[in-house]
């Protein structure tokens, strides 16, 4: 049912750290891991789950390490994968970059964490803020041994008591990422908005928070169907939110963790006009040159402005001698990603810009066929949400009765924003 052992491997498959939780797997089986993975990659069937004899490996790759869980019963794979990602998250809170060198540098604390975060293969406490209260890197400096914080076993396992701030503040960031996929002939195949409400909480004590959004279900239920509201297709909450409460009356109520965290994420598939639309016309003269005419249009309201717009146009990998002409922004050829990038620092709504590009092609064609990567666009539009979601209120109640100010910020940015090329 649970993980039998955990391994952290370098890219060559050498074990950096291992922890045997159940003593029922052959700990040398891990030596076969990398060969097995290579074989599967060769076959084109590399999946995050591998089998070697009667051991199953479930793994993720992060920077230059593999985190592998070995197990031999019918384990809950989803739980293991989530746990591995959680490990990376916790490690990075402890020592920032999680990679081969930092793992070696911090092996003592990693052993301690692995011991605390998982017992007999069952995930336990994985809240890094709570762990940091009693697993410290400089444990030897403490005069008296630390005790497990109450929060470890409390119903509120993500916040400790007795937090104090002189100035009580809450920052809310509503960030919407637009995923869009358009076909080469210009039809939008798929478009969705993945939103996220991130919080930075600097509040004293154990505050009770209630967040009000212009949620359509809520509005209709309370007879305010006419005011502007948003229909959220699917919502996911941080574990601090009382899910059953939300299920009954759509109230988002919670005791927040301290500091920064993602409170909720939501998804909606509304058909919106693509915010930035790219039209290309390409002339290919094989063996000699290729020329592009790129038209970029901003299709949002005039009073908004997109910042740091980057339009990435892929070109054949053997192209050279690029020549660009444009009235705005700058263009850079980046052969390492076989593309050129058109950067426009500030792109107001309702505008249209042009770029022409010429590149030479070698007279000898390369044998390998290349994929056709899509055009990608990166952008940020502040003070604007595509969905129209709004924070109506954030109520903060704490028994000491202090006043705290919530600050709200909205931003729309690109998610996977791709347009296929002809």
């Amino acid at each position, binding site marked *: 049912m649970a993980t039998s052992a955990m391994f952290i491997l370098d890219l060559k498959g050498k074990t950096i750290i291992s922890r045997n939780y159940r003593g029922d797997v052959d700990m040398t089986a891990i030596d076969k891991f990398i060969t097995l993975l290579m074989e599967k990659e060769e076959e084109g069937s590399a999946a*995050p789950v591998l089998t070697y004899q009667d051991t*199953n490996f479930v793994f993720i790759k992060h920077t230059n390490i593999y985190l592998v869980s070995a197990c031999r019963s019918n384990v*809950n794979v989803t739980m293991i*994968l989530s746990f591995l990602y959680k490990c990376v998250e916790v490690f990075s809170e402890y020592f920032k970059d999680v990679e081969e060198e930092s793992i070696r540098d911090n092996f003592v604390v990693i052993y301690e964490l692995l011991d605390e975060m998982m017992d007999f293969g069952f995930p336990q406490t994985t809240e890094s803020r709570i762990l940091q209260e009693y697993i410290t890197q400089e444990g030897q400096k403490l005069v008296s041994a630390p005790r497990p914080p109450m929060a470890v076993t409390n119903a509120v396992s993500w916040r400790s008591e007795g937090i104090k701030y002189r100035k009580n503040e809450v920052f809310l960031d509503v960030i919407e990422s637009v995923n869009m996929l358009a076909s080469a002939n210009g039809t939008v195949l798929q478009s969705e908005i993945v939103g996220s409400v991130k919080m930075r909480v600097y509040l004293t004590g154990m505050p009770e928070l209630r967040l009000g959004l212009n949620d359509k279900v809520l509005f209709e239920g309370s007879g305010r169907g006419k005011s502007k509201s948003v229909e959220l297709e*699917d919502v996911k*909450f941080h*574990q601090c939110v009382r899910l059953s409460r939300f299920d009954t009356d759509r109230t988002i109520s919670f005791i927040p963790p301290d500091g920064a965290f993602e409170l909720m994420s939501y*998804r909606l598939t509304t058909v919106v006009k693509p915010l930035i639309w790219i039209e290309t016309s390409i002339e290919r003269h094989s063996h000699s040159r290729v020329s592009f005419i790129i038209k970029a249009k901003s299709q949002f309201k005039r009073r908004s402005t997109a910042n740091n717009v980057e339009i990435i146009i892929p070109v054949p990998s053997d192209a050279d001698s690029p020549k660009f002409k444009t009235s705005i922004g700058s263009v850079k050829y980046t052969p390492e990603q076989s593309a050129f990038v058109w950067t426009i620092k500030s792109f107001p709504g309702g505008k249209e810009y042009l770029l022409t590009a010429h590149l030479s092609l070698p007279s000898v064609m390369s044998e390998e066929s290349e*994929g056709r990567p899509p055009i990608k666009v990166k952008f940020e539009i502040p003070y604007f949400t595509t969905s129209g979601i709004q924070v109506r209120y954030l109520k903060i109640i704490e028994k000491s009765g202090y006043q705290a100010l919530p600050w709200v910020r909205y931003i729309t940015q690109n998610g*996977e924003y791709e347009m296929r090329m002809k």
Partner: protein
Amino acid sequence: MTDSKYFTTTKKGEIFELKNELNSDKKEKKKEAVKKVIASMTVGKDVSALFPDVVNCMQTDNVELKKLVYLYLMNYAKSQPDLAIMAVNTFVKDCEDPNPLIRALAVRTMGCIRVEKITEYLCDPLRRCMKDEDPYVRKTAAVCVAKLHDMNPTLVKDQGFVELLNDLLSDANPMVVANAVAALTEMNEQQTVIEVNSQMVNKLLTALNECTEWGQVFILDALAGYTPRDERETQNICERISPRLAHANAAVVLSTVKVLMKLIDMMPADSDFITQLTKKLAPPMVTLLSAEPEIQYVALRNINLIVQKRPDILKQEMKVFFVKYNDPIYVKMEKLDIMIRLAQQNNISQVLSELKEYATEVDVDFVRKSVRAIGRCAIKVETSSERCVQTLLELIQTKVNYVVQEAVVVIKDIFRKYPNRYESIISALCENLDTLDEPEARASMIWIIGEYAERIDNADELLESFVEGFHDENTQVQLQLLTAVVKLFLKRPGVAQTLVQRVLSLATQDSDNPDLRDRGFIYWRLLSADPAAAKNVVLTEKPLISEETDLLEPSLLEQLVCHIGTLASVYHKPPSAFIDPAKAPLRQINPIPTAKFGSSLLDTSSATSASRNGSSAPTVIPSQDQVIADLLSLDLNAPATSANTGGFGGAMTGTSSMGGLDDLLGLGGDSLPAATTNVSSNNPFDSLAGLGMPSSVPAAQQPASIGGLAEIFGSGSFGGSTGVTYPKEMWLDASRAMGMQVEGTFVRRNGKIFMEMTITNKAMQAISGFALQFNKNSFGLIPVEQLNPSPLLPNQSQNVSFQFIFSSDNLFFI
């Protein structure tokens, strides 16, 4: 200075040096030394020689040092069991430490030391810790019970830990409840120690709202194993867990989906409640597709199951499965599978244009699968077949070698679904004849030529060019070639006279392959004995291939839906197929004492067969011939046979898509009425048998020592008593026999031995052509008459009973 310094000392007397440092008086030095030891251990050096010195450092007030020593102990205690006892005192002492962190640490570590002798000492401290005032200690103790159970289940029962664990299930602290339920679920997997009842379920549902995300997973997984008493309770559980679908943790979401999917089945299908509930399921699953790629993969494998079980849930969501350029290849492949499953008339044009796009990508495997997918769409959605064929033709024009080959294979399937509709494209295919170098593509092309021999002017030349290199071809191609040439001969005797003789002689005289030889002989005899009959046989009308060729068999699907989120759901195999039998949980002991022997015997055999079958466990619906292949070698579950069956079934899958089989299939069906009375199926082996030709089916020879029989003798009731009927036992489980389930028992009536069987068809196709083979056995029993039930339609079952007599001929001497 970082920890990495501890890795870097490789002077000669390293161990000696460490030993000195470990015994140093200075605390700092001691600790540094222990860190060095752990570092050596981490890189795989054997530092077990330092065991006594490290254990000496155990009694310290420094928690960090203590943890390191404990870590060392866990690693080496097994190799030094006698020395490990030294540590027991400190453990016991630490279990009473005023600091709960230390108490928990001690009990946690002690449980991880898998040394028999230590377990005795563990009991008292553990019992105390389970009643500790601090929940942190109690939650650790709860897990420790599972550890102890893993080493010594009887000890757990005898020492009353089961009851203590039961108490923890009602603990006021949600974290303790969660760990207790995790421990319990694990122990129950081996044998039921505490039955999950509705009272407990209520407690769990309350704790669900308060415990950590992992605790929620433990609770939901435990709930998945519970069967509610009535509809009201079912509905109540659904209502209380469905808010979990909004949890940010993917594991919580998938475990919730698992429980809901199971419970939905228990309620009346058309109720409003179900409609509401299924509506809630789609959005969270779609959201999982924005998770990390590995989690996406698991989600997609599970969605594949859910789409098969309840196609309605995601039928509107086609677009979210469109492949993105940067998706990892394993995600792309799974998305493709789901796209085909969701393809319908109303979205087919979108799907097709996507597939066409994918077919021009660069990843070979992905492109191949996309081309195949186009073919599957044609077969699934008839109105789209025209466009699919057109698209395939365009792809063939690209002349990309692997695209062409793949296209040929799927066009063959399209011909098998829509005969005589798209022959116009044959000429385009023939143009690419010489680029085909893969056996499957060659075989497909040859099948097409043979099938449409009368419309291809130069069919004889084309086939002749293949015959040139007959011996270099793969068996699949050879068989195909043989059949195609015979077809050509029957259709146009003039042009193929010499060719057919040449092929027949190549197949019968120069080949070592029994399948090829046998088929050659059949054709030969058929052609020489009665050409008209041969025509009827070879050119008979073939059954059309079915739409969905890769659906999971229903009983397996049923089982997998109960395992959503687990390895089984990723592999699409039942857990028994990949879990080592040596470590597999012991089955619950059968409550009927007389049946004990029998059931344990059967269990062992099933476990062995599962492990031997390994990768060839059934994952696709069986084609008719596979089922019968199974039946032929079915030996009521004796171990060796099932291993045979596995291998055999696997071999069959390789060839089952070939057209040539169809010819043989026709053989039994039309021309030989004598053989068809019993063998109504179109199976090559049956037909072969009917013709009196040697069959290549491996006839398994081993004693049929089934439980029931053994009991008749074992219980001493053989001679005297009459009318003792043992309940029917499962002899062959549907999930392991391509959907055929056999339950049976032996009874005595009026001094005669009867075998009674219930045969149930859980596959999606009718099963027919039953034959019973009773091998030599130690009781010398043979059936008096042949088994002759009528064909079984899906979900039908039938009781058969027949008499046995003793025959010395059939006696197997051990």
